């Protein structure tokens, strides 16, 4: 992915974002005075992870919205808002496309790209460090790894090739879905969950609002798992912006593994 760099980067103070994940990362790690616009999605309660300063303009990924704001850096993702970012580029604004992250290697790349675009940011640097530290730990012995299974909304599970899968493996679990041959996404019925007898049942998002999509989690048959603490809930943001949560999730999964394996 070509990065449009305009020489050595000095601290920008009129940063705009056309991508939800970039929004959240900016809001998380960059001083609010330096941001002029994020997408309207960040205004939605469901997506907001960091407080939203009042002065920000919520854009709908239209080039003309950003023109009057005169941003000195426009961040955008790999997909989405293509027309707007191309237009802004043509008009001479500095546009940086940050690649999406679908596995841990790409996640590190994403953080590096971000750093290159924004310069030295303490929060960002710390995240990179923590991630590296966790990844440098040698994964546990493969044969004694407890089995884990992800039960996401609408009975979806995550198999080989997904970031969530990698996090499980790195934390020292066996992904029972991948073991059954599931690539990327697959369906898992409650029967299959019970049959697989995972030692850790992983839910994905969905704690606050009701949805039939999450009905499976509330089934009494899973009560035992919940009561014995053999569940872990992946935060929603892992789905739409892994950089926000991956480090914490990995750490928590590792702790969970210790908890499970430690039991007699």
């Amino acid at each position: 992915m070509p990065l449009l760099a305009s020489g050595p980067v000095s601290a920008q103070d009129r940063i705009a974002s056309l991508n939800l994940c970039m929004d959240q990362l900016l809001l998380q790690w960059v001083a609010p005075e330096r941001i002029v616009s994020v997408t309207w999605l960040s205004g939605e309660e469901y997506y907001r992870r960091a407080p939203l300063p009042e002065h920000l303009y919520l854009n709908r990924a239209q080039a003309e919205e950003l023109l009057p704001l005169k941003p000195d850096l426009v961040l955008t993702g790999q997909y989405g808002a293509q027309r707007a970012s191309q237009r802004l580029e043509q008009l001479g604004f500095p546009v940086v496309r940050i690649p999406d992250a679908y596995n841990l290697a790409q996640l590190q790349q994403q953080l590096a790209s971000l750093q290159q675009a924004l310069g030295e940011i303490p929060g960002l640097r710390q995240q990179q460090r923590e991630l590296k530290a966790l990844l440098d730990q040698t994964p546990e012995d493969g044969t004694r790894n407890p089995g884990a299974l992800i039960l996401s909304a609408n009975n979806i599970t995550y198999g080989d090739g997904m970031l969530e899968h990698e996090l499980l493996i790195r934390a020292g679990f066996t992904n029972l879905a991948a073991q059954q041959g599931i690539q990327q996404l697959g369906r898992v019925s409650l029967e299959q969950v019970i049959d697989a007898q995972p030692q850790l049942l992983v839910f994905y998002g969905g704690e606050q609002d009701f949805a039939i999509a999450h009905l499976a989690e509330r089934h009494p048959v899973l009560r035992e798992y919940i009561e014995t603490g053999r569940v872990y809930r992946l935060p929603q943001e892992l789905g739409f912006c892994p950089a926000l949560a991956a480090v914490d999730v990995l750490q928590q999964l590792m702790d969970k593994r210790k908890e499970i394996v430690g039991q007699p």
Partner: protein
Amino acid sequence: MAMLAALSSGPVSIDLSAAIAGGWHSDSSDAVILWQLRLPRAVLAIVVGAALGLGGAAMQGMLRNPLAEPALLGVSSGAALAAILVLYYGAAVSGYLLPLLAIAGALLAVGSVWLLAGHGASASRLVLAGVAINAFLSALMALALNYAPSMFAMQEIVFWLLGSLANRGWDQVLLALPFVVIGTVFLFLSRNYLRALSLGEASASSLGFSGRRYPLLVLFGIAFAVGASVAVAGTIGFIGLVVPHLMRPLVGQDPGRLLWSSALAGALLLLLADVLVLNTVGTQELRIGAVTAFIGAPFFFWLIVSGRRELNL
């Protein structure tokens, strides 16, 4: 027999006899699958199917029209709308409030149909009013889901329109069952009224079934049975329409006996439909409402074509 098929159907192959022998409290995963996942689902299919068959028979009896069904007159949509409002907007919902409010929704819907059609309206005018109210309520359902806080809400309209028995356990069965039973009792008490109505409204009145009591009894019965079913399984159409039709010749056209036989046949039909759903593999869950519509719609066509010769529509 259908029960056996239902219990044997599922993504995971289990040892059925061992699971049964294991008993309710067995820990083996096969037993858990049988008792906690498959059995409640089958029981729910039976309860919901019976409720829908019963509701259809009662509605056809009361309207003196073989083309009536609870879904047609807004009973199902009213219940679904109420359930949607409760589930997606109501913060803390304690158990029985859900089916109760769904029943209230069903009653309100029927009330609106009655009001719209006017006092003493003919059956065809009632059906027309029902179609109008139904359309209105479906739009409201979509609107409510559109603005619901949950991420998935809008997609879940498919569930509410086509129904599903997946991921349901004993808690859902116990939630709906008391109300379905109450509805059944109400309808059972009104069986002679439905019989008398075969003659005509005036004659029925002269035979002792005058006043508001009996129509209200039937309406409440239908609302209770169908409303509670919709609250846990979504709206499943065509059962209420098709089953009474199939059963009527077998009971000598008696609206009273039709109630029982429609309940049984409805339960059987829905159970079989669910067996089909369970045995169909695909990326998406096959919606049970789609299966019943697949059976029901051609039946409906046949009905209209053959009915042109006989009945007055």
